[in-house]
């Protein structure tokens, strides 16, 4: 029982990070039909940026905010200088562009930062919390709590604000949104900025647990993409569910079956789900996008 609880805790923690990466994929995909494989690099930028700004003497919260700003600027740059000039290109071409961007960002991070692994201090100490025989790190609560706050904030943004509704309208039909006076270019730019911010926050929250380096983005992007597809591409509820499911499957699989094949378990389940439900768990047909 305590063992199971332990696996659930660690699964939910990584799962929350996957969920945030998957949300980033979903937001950009809905606004622009672009699958952004540089999503993992935003996570890396958040973590590495904070580490280096903090090392330069800034207090941790200031460093974190600046790192998020930096990631947002990179996200906007990606949109303005790589996605916008290629508008109208085929989906595969756009995917190659984002892959190129991810390679370039990793290369830039190698130069600006370094090739070492780094960690941040835990936000509120390392004293584990004991729950029914299992232990929970305070930082895990930060990660899960942070993910919950972001999901609620996004929900509020989409359902309560005019700008959020403009994003929904653009996702539903770009031409129609344009015709009713929505600046769809602004909306797409905004979606890149928001995705970058979410990714950076995820990177900052998780770095005290998992460490960061210039190349952590690749695997996170893969898991996030897989999570988004598992839930049904373009569906935020699906993205969060998919992320948590992959985190839990990995953790339970590593605990009960084989730790060397933990990534395999997640991908096997994804293949299995897609065979039965080719549109993902929350198939795009039955649920409205965003």
């Amino acid at each position: 029982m305590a063992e199971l609880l332990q696996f659930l805790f660690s699964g939910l923690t990584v799962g929350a990070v996957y969920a945030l990466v998957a949300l980033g994929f979903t937001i950009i995909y809905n606004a622009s039909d672009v699958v952004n494989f540089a999503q993992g690099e935003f996570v890396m930028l958040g973590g590495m940026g904070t580490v280096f700004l903090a090392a330069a003497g800034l207090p941790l919260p200031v460093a974190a905010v600046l790192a998020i700003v930096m990631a947002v600027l990179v996200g906007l740059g990606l949109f303005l200088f790589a996605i916008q000039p290629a508008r109208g290109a085929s989906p595969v071409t756009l995917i190659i562009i984002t892959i190129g961007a991810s390679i370039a960002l990793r290369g830039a991070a190698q130069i600006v930062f370094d090739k070492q692994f780094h960690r941040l201090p835990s936000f509120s100490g390392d004293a584990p919390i004991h729950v029914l025989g299992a232990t929970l790190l305070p930082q895990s609560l930060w990660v899960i709590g942070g993910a919950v706050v972001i999901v609620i904030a996004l929900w509020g943004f989409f359902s309560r604000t005019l700008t959020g509704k403009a994003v929904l309208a653009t996702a539903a039909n770009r031409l129609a949104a344009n015709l009713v006076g929505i600046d769809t270019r602004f909306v797409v730019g905004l979606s890149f900025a928001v995705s970058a911010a979410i990714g950076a926050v995820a990177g900052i929250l998780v770095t005290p647990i998992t460490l960061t380096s210039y190349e952590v983005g690749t695997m996170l992007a893969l898991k996030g993409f897989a999570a988004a597809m598992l839930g049904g591409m373009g569906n935020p509820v699906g993205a969060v569910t998919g992320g948590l499911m992959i985190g839990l499957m990995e953790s339970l699989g590593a605990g009960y079956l084989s730790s060397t094949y933990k990534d395999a378990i997640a991908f096997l389940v994804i293949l299995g789900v897609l065979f039965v439900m080719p549109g993902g768990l929350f198939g795009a047909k039955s649920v409205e996008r965003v």
Partner: protein
Amino acid sequence: MPPRLRRLLPVLIIAAAVVLLPFGLTSAYQIRVATLVFTGGLTVIGLNLLMGYAGQVSLGHAGFGGIGAYAVAILPTHFGVHPLLAFLIGITAAGLVAYLVGRPILRLKGHYLAVATLGMGILIAMVIQNEAAWTGGPDGMQVPRMELFGWRVRGAETWYWICGAFLVLGALLAVNLIDSPTGRALRAIHDSEVAARVLGVDVARAKLVVFTVSAVYAATGGALLAFVNAFVTPDIAGFLHSVELVTMVVLGGLGSIVGSVVGAAILVVLPQVLTVFHEFEHLAIGLIMIAVMIFMRAGVVPTLAARFAGSRA
């Protein structure tokens, strides 16, 4: 130009390049790089059949390359199988895996197909990585030298000609496949799957055929690469290599046989050249990929061909 010659033009261009290149290449190192381009180009031609003609993306194609490569490493080392036989077993196995996995996978569309092939590729890479007793794990393993009729196949130049011959053969088969009923079916699927089905095209079968064929290409390319290097590491089957292959297809040009080889050449040669700027290598590769995709959207070869044709007209 007579249609028959026009159809064979890509094969002739590639064959001419293979024959003429040695006159311009001065060192064994350059011969070796050209050989790497040939093995890569062969894989990319196969993937281009799938992507360029059938319009299906695979993010796990390096997995098939890994099957071919590890077949020629494992079978001779652990079972004493002759390398040539191991080579045949490897490419057959890859084709078989593609055929079996392809049935359920190819029902998926677009990004769902991409993630399914991604998962498949990662599973193959993971088995190679973790079954260290057989594969040497992350460190990789030696590939025994091929011996034919008492003659040991070795040396950069020998492999240059072998790989060059395979590349030309691969291009020839691809050109013929595109021109066959299956090829026409594929192009119909690319334009509209529904319309193709209405016209009586067996969409599922045509996709499965091209997926299997492209896997055989990848396994052949992977096995040749393993022979050339006399060493394999799990990177050959990894996700990053799969992405590299897709990038080669798109850079060179979707649906262009010559483009496949050019795309492979760009991504093989570029890092060799850029090591001069070692710090900035990845940054530069990424930026070049973005720039090419923005300014030569159809890929290098089709864009240049169109520009050339335009300037003559």
